[in-house]
């Protein structure tokens, strides 16, 4: 099953990987920080090596966001949104894994899950069983 993992971050500065700039992370003792960074590296290596990693992308700073709305036939392009929410979508991963349990396990091992959140969304399949 394929899942989209949406990685949310809450950084002081927009720089990937996002959790390294999270105030919560920066407040940790040095040894714990090193451990978390190593944990993230190990996770990426694990899902790449297992063939579960399908794709992933880091997103640019939200200040570069533009929103397009078409109303009455004409497009209005605005900068932003610069929402109130401090948690921002930082990037995403697509994984192809055994099922929702494994997807949640992978999500939980992103350090970002500890400081902000990782959302797990199943990807729709074009195949279907006879009902």
């Amino acid at each position: 099953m394929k899942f989209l993992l949406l990685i949310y971050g809450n950084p002081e500065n927009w720089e990937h990987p996002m959790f390294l700039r999270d105030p919560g992370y920066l407040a940790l003792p040095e040894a714990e920080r090193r451990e978390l960074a190593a944990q993230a590296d190990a996770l990426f290596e694990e899902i790449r090596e297992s063939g579960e990693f399908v794709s992933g992308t880091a997103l640019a700073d939200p200040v570069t966001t533009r929103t397009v709305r078409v109303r009455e036939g004409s497009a209005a392009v605005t900068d932003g949104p610069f929402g109130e929410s401090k948690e921002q979508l930082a990037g995403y991963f697509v994984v192809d894994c055994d099922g929702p349990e494994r997807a949640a396990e992978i999500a939980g091992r992103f350090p970002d899950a500890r400081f902000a959140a990782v959302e797990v969304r199943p990807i729709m399949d074009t195949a279907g069983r006879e009902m």
Partner: protein
Amino acid sequence: MSTGTGTEDLLRRLAPRVLAALVRRHGHFESAEDAVQEALLAAATRWPEDGVPDRPDAWLIRVASRRLADLLRSEEAGRRREERVAATTPRDELLAPAADEDRGDDTLTLLLLCCHPSLTPPSRIALTLRAVGGLTTAEIARAFLVPEATMAQRISRAKRRVRASGARFNLPPEPERAERLRSVLHVLYLIFNEGYTATSGADLRRGDLTREAIRLTRTVHDLLPADGEVAGLLALMLLTEARGPARTGPDGSLVPLAEQDRSRWSRRPLEEGVALITRTLARARLGPYQVQAAIAAVHAEAAHAGGTDWRQVVALYRLLDDLEPGPVVTLNHAVAVAMVDGPHAGLALLEPLDADDRMAGHHRLHAVRAHLLEMAGEREAARDGYLTAARLTTSLPEQRYLRERAARLPGTP
């Protein structure tokens, strides 16, 4: 993988034999598998022009052996290995084994290796399709809708795992063999389902997986004709495949079994499947694949849905529930019971599933319950059930089907 030219069919049939010959003589499963892929590619480009050699297997073994030597030479610390390969490079008579020397066991050994317990199911599937099925990584990746790099990772990890597990290229000892064979059958069934659930259009290439699964299962059946479960799985695949033309509408929508136009079922696989399972049930030890094939055969033998012998289906599901209990069996059992004893009897069977974590939030439980509620005339509850199922499924065609079912039951405005 769908071109199905003569050369391609021949190459796919020879692939496991060539790989087995290489591994037997030189070891190095990982590199040997790569070498065989390259030899197959060379043959696929050269044979159509130069003609198929007199001994195509010997040709492939020779080219693959040479390629294996190259691969090992280019590996670091390859010096000593290269000498070993040179020392074991077979003489010509070994390269061209007499036809009666052709060991069918090799394909089985290879399958058992590819479905080794140290591998995850996706890795078993990928490795089986490549090493035994002779498909390229790109073809397998396309069939599973993942990037080639992802599939390449799965295959190379699977090969490393096989090596690390210390598995030898031998049939496993007798006591282990039955269990290992079960794992092979499960992988073949997963490959079949992956192809079968794909509908049409953009997914045509995925559909080729059903054909590949049937081909491989047939090979195993030829090697182990007395094994009832192998025969049962082959019959199950044939009977399921036979419904293929009727199970989707022209627009790709799903058509449930009860509404399928049975004149569109493919006669040949259907007849072969019925004959095979009938023969097998008479003489083999019973197992879950045989029972599932028997259920499919009961459906196949009814000229129209109304003529289905539901009593027999219920009895078979009860048997399946004894052999291999599980929530999906319970769901199907409940539908059959409802056809015999009425929807309320079926609904009662579903109740324990609410407490089953595997099923409670699963769309199929809601879909089946909605179906039985509809039979019971509880239109509103049925409609809610279909809509809940539609929200929970992650399949686009299933979602569409479930919404249509709900739309047939308009609620009070």
